[in-house]
């Protein structure tokens, strides 16, 4: 037992030590790729017709006239001091402030979408696996294929047209009603802040505005869970201990939910970690499609403006989240599943 726990400690330590290397790699790649893409941020800022003198002055002020290696060293130096710089486009907003302002909207959307995708994916997967070789099974497979294949923006627009424009069941285009004051709480998560303030009307509105974006992202990512649950549950339902349970006359529903599903859910933990990256990637499209004022939408805007510090800052932030999540999931997996070697 003690050798297992010391091995686990060693494993955790090695994963944590690798994290800075992973983040440095992401940082360097983002820095280099941005400079390799066409377009000059000064042109984007001043317009291509601005006088050369104005362009040169701005380039100097922003430090863009320095050689790339010097810009890189300055950037790394600032990064070590947790200084992500200031937006080139707005010339006044710090990147940390931008992340702080926009990340709560992304987090709220991704958390709810994650919930939707787990619930939908597991339910469809269980239904399909518990009735193998039936239309339900085929429906589950079809669901998985469709959710993999359907483009996010197309599905988002379809839901908007159906549930917002035609049926008028849900609002679109904002995170909160324009006519109301949004909950101003410590977390920036409207659901949580409105509850902390006791503003239940604001809570209802926040949830109401979250429905369509989170359904879009959640449903499209639920195919991953559906497939894993369906395959694993099918395998588990054919195992000896399940057959033994059936022989003892235990009802099928109880066998599925109380015995087989637990084991079939272990790979879901691994996938949850991988899903963080997909969720953040999907969030960019969902936020743009639904006009959701999150960090991913802000990243899209910054890329358009060639706002180097903002793009770098958000990418590094996302990179850190994905790296940390993957480490956490690895550790969690190693802890819950004794078969994993480390």
């Amino acid at each position: 037992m003690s050798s297992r726990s010391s091995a686990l400690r060693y494993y955790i330590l090695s994963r944590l030590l690798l994290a800075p290397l992973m983040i440095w790699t992401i940082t360097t790649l983002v820095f280099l790729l941005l400079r390799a893409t066409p377009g000059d941020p000064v042109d984007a800022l001043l317009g291509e017709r601005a006088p050369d003198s104005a362009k040169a002055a701005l380039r100097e002020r922003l430090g863009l006239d320095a050689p790339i290696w010097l810009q890189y060293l300055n950037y790394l130096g600032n990064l070590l001091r947790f200084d992500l710089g200031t937006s080139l486009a707005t010339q006044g907003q710090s990147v940390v402030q931008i992340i702080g302002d926009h990340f709560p909207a992304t987090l709220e959307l991704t958390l709810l979408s994650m919930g939707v995708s787990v619930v939908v994916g597991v339910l469809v997967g269980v239904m399909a696996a518990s009735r193998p070789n039936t239309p339900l099974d085929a429906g589950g497979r079809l669901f998985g294929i469709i959710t993999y294949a359907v483009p996010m923006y197309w599905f988002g627009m379809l839901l908007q047209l159906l549930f917002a424009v035609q049926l008028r069941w849900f609002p679109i285009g904002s995170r909160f009603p324009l006519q109301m004051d949004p909950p101003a709480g410590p977390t920036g998560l409207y659901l949580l802040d409105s509850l902390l303030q006791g503003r239940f009307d604001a809570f209802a509105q926040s949830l109401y505005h979250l429905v369509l974006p989170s359904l879009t992202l959640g449903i499209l990512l639920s195919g991953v869970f559906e497939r894993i649950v369906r395959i694993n549950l099918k395998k588990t339902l054919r195992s000896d201990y399940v057959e033994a349970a059936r022989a003892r006359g235990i009802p099928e529903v109880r066998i599925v939910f109380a015995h087989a599903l637990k084991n079939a859910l272990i790979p879901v933990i691994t996938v949850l970690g991988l899903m963080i990256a997909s969720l953040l990637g999907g969030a960019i499209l969902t936020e743009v499609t639904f006009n959701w004022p999150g960090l991913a939408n802000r990243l899209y805007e910054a890329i358009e403006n060639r706002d180097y510090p903002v793009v770098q800052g958000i990418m590094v932030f996302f990179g850190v989240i994905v790296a940390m999540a993957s480490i956490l999931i690895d550790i969690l997996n190693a802890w819950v599943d004794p078969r994993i070697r480390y």
Partner: protein
Amino acid sequence: MKAVLGVSLRQWRRVLQWVGLFGLCLALAVGCGASQESATPPDGATTPVGGRVSVGTTLKARTLDPADAYEIFPGILLYNMGDRLYTYAPGTTDLVPQLATALPIVSEDGLTYTIPLRDGVTFHDGTPFTAASMAFSIQRFMENGGRPSFLLAEKIASVAATGDRELTITLNSPFSAFPALLSFWGVTPVPVESYEIAAGSFKPESFVGTGPYKLASFSTDSIKLDVNPDYWGDAPSNEGIDIQLFSSPANLFNSFQTGNLDVAYQTLDPEQIASLERDAGQEGWSVIEAGTTVVNYLSLNMKMEPLDNPAVRGAIAAMVDRNLIRDRVFQGQADPLYSMIPKSFDVYQPVFQEAYGDGNFEQAKELLASAGFNESNPFELELWYPSASTIRSIVANTLKESIENGLPGIVTVNVQNVEAASLFENMEKGIYPAVLQNWYPDFFDVDNFVQPFMSCDQGSPETLCESGATFSDGTFYYSERANELIQQQRAELDPEVRNGMLEELQQLMIQDVPSIPLWQNKDYVFAQSGIEGVEIQPTQQFLFWQIAK
């Protein structure tokens, strides 16, 4: 029985039946389920506050700092939250004093402008507006190095408060359009106590001015303006403005359709505009249409063969069919343009129509023949546009289709695109023969429509332009007469004499054809039933204070 993926064909059929049934229900819901009421909010949600107007737009508000705001939308916000020395009387292009009490007194040499200022004006923070604060604001505009700083920095030699209510500005060289330039949204006073003069020092998320609205909140997705109760002028017709910023035209279109917005302003796709116009009668929407001063044109690289031949450039001017572009691409939502000066100015003359016509393939054939191009030696036109511009992509392909049909075997059009950043970065290198471009003016004066397309700071008839406006524009046009006329019209204070010079410049444009004007955009605003006073000004400004609910 055969099986696919372990499921029998009969079972697959049943699955497909269910999917089909679901699809049918979906189609029925989409087709028939339209309700004309907006989404019912959950209990406890407030209904819109009476008198506050909600406006939706896809335009971006990058910054609210007047010394750095160079785009349309921040300009509109500053126009509504700030005042300027001069402005345009609503509904006209007449320049009238705003924070000034009269038009400037100009010295004989045209260099010194003395401006009397209004008394009794206060900033949103309660501090008084003075000549010193105006001088400070202009100085800050020039020195902080924001995007539009060059507009004034290149022209003003000094600015000083020569009295508590008098401002004196000295120019580097005479510039007759200077009062019009003073109506630019960024030349708005800000209090000395809240702002500083320092390169790169900007306040993108706040604004303190003297206008009818003050900023209540600012974020990347919404902006709220409250009425300034201490405003010196007429009070707005509404109780405030709530602006929702959208990331795509589809979001704006859907939100307006669902009744979540009172006003939808820029930018909708042509199909969406057509759809809203179609449904306006039934839904009770008002459609406000106005011409803009945005000029769309084709720039020709005069350094590149065979475009260095005026006959070839003339032939291209004759080939283009503006009416076809208007009808096929814009569904009537644009106006054909026959001069680089837009129709909003009296001096506009349809010179290209008179000289070359529209889709005039006979003339084009003759001009090309004179340049040695015919069926046995066809002319290939390489036409470039920025890849992200769907409109210009359709225009380029429409032109290709039209020209190749009109001049079969004589002209082939090779349509190319490149990412906008690369296109504009490489324009000065002279690698693109012909580019579809557009021009958003900085201020409302004709100079802003001739200088960028015809003036060159350095060059010769042999080398063409080596530095200056036409070098940046990628045409490399160099004409000593054009340079002379541009300088003269800038210094000329007599409007009639100036108009004569501008007419000659338009003639030079059809003679040398460095650029070919194509179309002038139209602006559209849609307002829900019960919203009054929505107008687009001839200067393209959108005055929030006129809107009543």
